[in-house]
């Protein structure tokens, strides 16, 4: 394997002209290579490109640099207040050592169906900024994941930032990761919801699910049950049912497909109620 350390974004892009694996925290890539899951011809180390490590407000949006670490998310007041599902997912992300190294971009590029940061980024309409020697483009996260561990990012492209819509005053949200232990665990199901309320009417609804299909995704049928409506128990039930119907999980060592599917309904129902401050039969 050829290993290059880039001193600038341009250098990284030039080195990747014919395709490369970019290495940031290495928390996915190193074990993948070590255990033979990935064969890499050229690795380009971008971990020292400090210009890609930031979390900022720009044009009314939140821009997260590709190299921002999961710990950076936790230490950001902006993320905590204006992207709280992302903040909560960062709390449940692996353990402190991994959080210190793992980058936000790396979690997305790994394209695991269970990528912890994907559901909360999806519900805040994330758009990723991609650059290559040929130029730059913006790609909505909802079009980013193509299939199991497959993204729309071209081999020569580098992710520079992720842009999300802040929650704002009208944003109501909730997040939950169902896992088999309290740290260093892959999600059995990950759910994030954001409801943008205009008075008592839901102007926009975003519901995303992780670990229940080949890719993390927005449950649009479930969202449609809520959009433009005053949300009551019937709407929530319909959304929960639609979310459950939308799931296409697999059986694996962590849980059965049937359980995961069922949990999509349970958790969407619960998180919608939680987001709206409605009473719950059982606390999350």
């Amino acid at each position, binding site marked *: 394997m050829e290993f290059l350390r880039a001193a600038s974004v341009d250098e990284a892009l030039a080195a990747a002209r014919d395709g490369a694996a970019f290495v940031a925290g290495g928390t996915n890539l190193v074990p993948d290579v070590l255990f033979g899951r990935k064969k890499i011809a050229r690795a380009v180390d971008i971990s020292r490109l400090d210009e890609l490590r930031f979390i900022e407000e720009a044009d009314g949006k939140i821009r997260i640099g590709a190299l921002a670490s999961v710990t950076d998310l936790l230490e950001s007041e902006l993320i905590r207040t204006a992207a709280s599902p992302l903040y909560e997912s960062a709390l449940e992300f692996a353990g402190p050592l991994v959080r210190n190294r793992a980058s936000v971009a790396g979690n997305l590029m790994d394209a695991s169906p269970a990528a912890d940061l994907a559901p909360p980024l999806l519900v805040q309409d994330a758009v990723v900024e991609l650059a290559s020697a040929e130029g730059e483009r913006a790609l909505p996260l909802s079009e980013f994941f193509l299939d199991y561990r497959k993204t729309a990012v071209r081999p020569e492209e580098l992710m520079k930032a992720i842009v999300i819509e802040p929650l704002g005053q009208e944003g109501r949200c909730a997040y939950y990761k169902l896992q088999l232990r309290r740290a260093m665990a892959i999600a059995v199901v990950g759910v994030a919801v954001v409801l943008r309320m205009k008075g008592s009417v839901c102007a926009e609804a975003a519901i995303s699910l992780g670990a229940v299909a080949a890719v993390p995704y927005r449950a649009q049928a479930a969202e449609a049950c809520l959009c433009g409506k005053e949300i009551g128990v019937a709407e929530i039930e319909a959304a929960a049912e639609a979310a459950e119907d939308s799931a296409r999980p697999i059986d694996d060592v962590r849980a059965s497909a049937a359980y995961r599917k069922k949990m999509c309904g349970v958790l969407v129902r*619960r998180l919608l109620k939680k987001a709206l401050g409605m009473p719950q039969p059982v606390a999350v």
Partner: protein
Amino acid sequence: MSTRVVGQPHPIIDAVEKVSGATIFINDLELPGALTGLALRSPHPHARILNLDTSAAERLAGVAVVLSKNNTPNAPFGINHKDEAAFCREKARYVGDEVAAVAAADEETAREALSLIRVDYEVLPTVADPFAAQEPNAPLVHDSVTGNIANEFHIKRGEIDEAFDAADAAFADEFHTHLAHQAYIEPTGCAAQWHPGGKISVWGCLQSVFLIRTFMLGPAMGMSPDDFRVTQTKPGGAFGGKLDVKAALMAAMLSRAAEKPVRFMMSLEEDLIAMRPRMPVHISLESAWKRDGTLAGKRVRIVAENGAYSSLSPAIMSSIALRTDNLYKTPAAEIQGKLVYTNIIPSGQMRGFGNVQATYAWESHLDNVADSLGLDPAELRLKNYTEKGDVSLHGWKIASCAVADATRYVVEEMDWKAKRARGGKGRGVGLASCIHVSGNKGFSVELGPDDTDPSSGVVRVDEEGKVEIWSGESDLGQGATSVMAYIASEVMGIPVERFRVPPTDTGYMPFGMGAFASRITLIGGNAVKLAAEDARRNLLDAAAEFMEIPADELEIVEGEVRAKALPERKMSVGEVVRRAGSVIEGNGKWLAGGDVLDKEKYGNPSTTYSFSTHGAEVEVDMETGVVTILGICCGHDPGRVINRLGAEGQVEGGAVQGMSFAMMEGLAPLEGHLRGKNFHDYLIATSMDAPPIEHDFFESMDPYGPYGAKGLAEVAINPITAAICNAIYHATGGARIRTLPVSPERVLEAIEEARK
């Protein structure tokens, strides 16, 4: 008895060495010129080896030797059944089975050599299910073993049929446990050095340096056990898994063939797929009761999963079958066990030696019974516990017992009565108890020199007044060497800091059976105590001559020999040794009590028995099945605490390890392939998962124990699984976990079943 050292909290004697990184573990051991040894393992659960061609690997530059069935004799070995060989002969029987091994100049060359070995397999149908394995037309794991039955037994004791006929009520349950690994942090490794003349030195983290020579190395290599000098390296974790360590055999065979030192270090994945994890069992229980909650009799049927090879599995099954009968006054019992070969990793011993599984099943069943009889589960237990002086149905003699005190403590500490009154709303409490041996005579016959389950110790005092203890009993991380140092320090009046207990070494140390069956504190501790008393006597005799004061008028205080009447007349211990002109030594040997069981498994297998009761409080999410353990509370009867810090470590470690087993662990075999073969998919509890743990000790002052002490290692883990499952049952209003581990999914299924 008032004590100066015993019962106090001390750091483990090599704590500083360990935490400062100075300890030499096996992977740190450097042998000049050592080759790297690696094994080629079967990728198939069951396959006939049609052809095995190692010639290309042998020709590779840097390869010293390639071993396989082609160039090693067929020398089967095994503790109960001689069903295993160093390398697969006609068949590979599990994924991980050793097909060949290489020794090469470095790891890269060794890996390349493995890739050059050509094996033509005929893949055979996998025997994965222990029930299907018994069907008449099932494929056979070992062609000569019909029905795939490795062992079976059927025992009736007492008037069992009458007990059920006359009972006011009878209840039945079934439970299933899973394949879980010891999950020690240090991967297994061994090094070996062949010496001209034919002797071989072996190093490794081994629970019994003496016995591995007799049950594995000697027979498998056609050599005498005395041809091996086995030295323990400091333990990086074992929990039962480092008793039969095939890496020792691999290293020794490669070293002999190459006539060079060989280091054979396994990867974590190899450890997970090819060591000897905790045996999965399927337990059917029936029990008969009087209306007032008096146990009248029980029937137990066990199907135990042996895996591909037997090792200690027959003894583990026996332990599962009989042990819980001795915790309660059981008038009659009928016990049937079947041990079944499968094409899954051979199962084996892990902390509890089957008692974790047995206690989970029986203690879960007891709460079902209590519920059906309308009795409090704690009261039901207190009504039926065995007591000091009892001889159990199976012949166990209870020399000391404080299990009732432990239970009363848990009940009080957990605010049991108030919390039991509020079950069924997602929050609940449960408890469970256990009995465990302190040594087991059966092992002495199967593995040891004779039926005495012996241990010996040597205590040596040098000219600086420092003391070295030689014991044949291994420290596997449980703190055994510290226990020995504290016992000897107490006896000899010499401060603990002056003691050193080197790792076991068959080259110069006296014989010991090793670390298993919670035997070391009782048996090894008694041997060291006798040796320390002998050394003290010898010191005082020598000092008497130099000080011209009769020995019986002298005492040793703070490392000084003093005249009892005139404390200012004193000599340091080191000075006594200097004057004597040589090391002053003491020797001790202790033989365990109890009997070898008869053919019907009747008898008293251990000198004495330890007890514990664990309680758990849980919160259950009734919609997802997610369980949060809010707290654990445990009471233990270890006879007497020798080292309070060490004992607390055992208790807290046991509770967390047991909770981890109960809640999340599992190698998760699927058609013979393990799915939990790294610490990413094989989950063990993290510090985030560990709940607050309250505990206390109830010292029954055992008449046979050194200062009254018995074993603690295994009673610390056995009951927690059932305590958690009973708390879930209480919290959910009747969700009974019958299959482990307690995944959210299983809890949800159990909740739904309970609602029906």
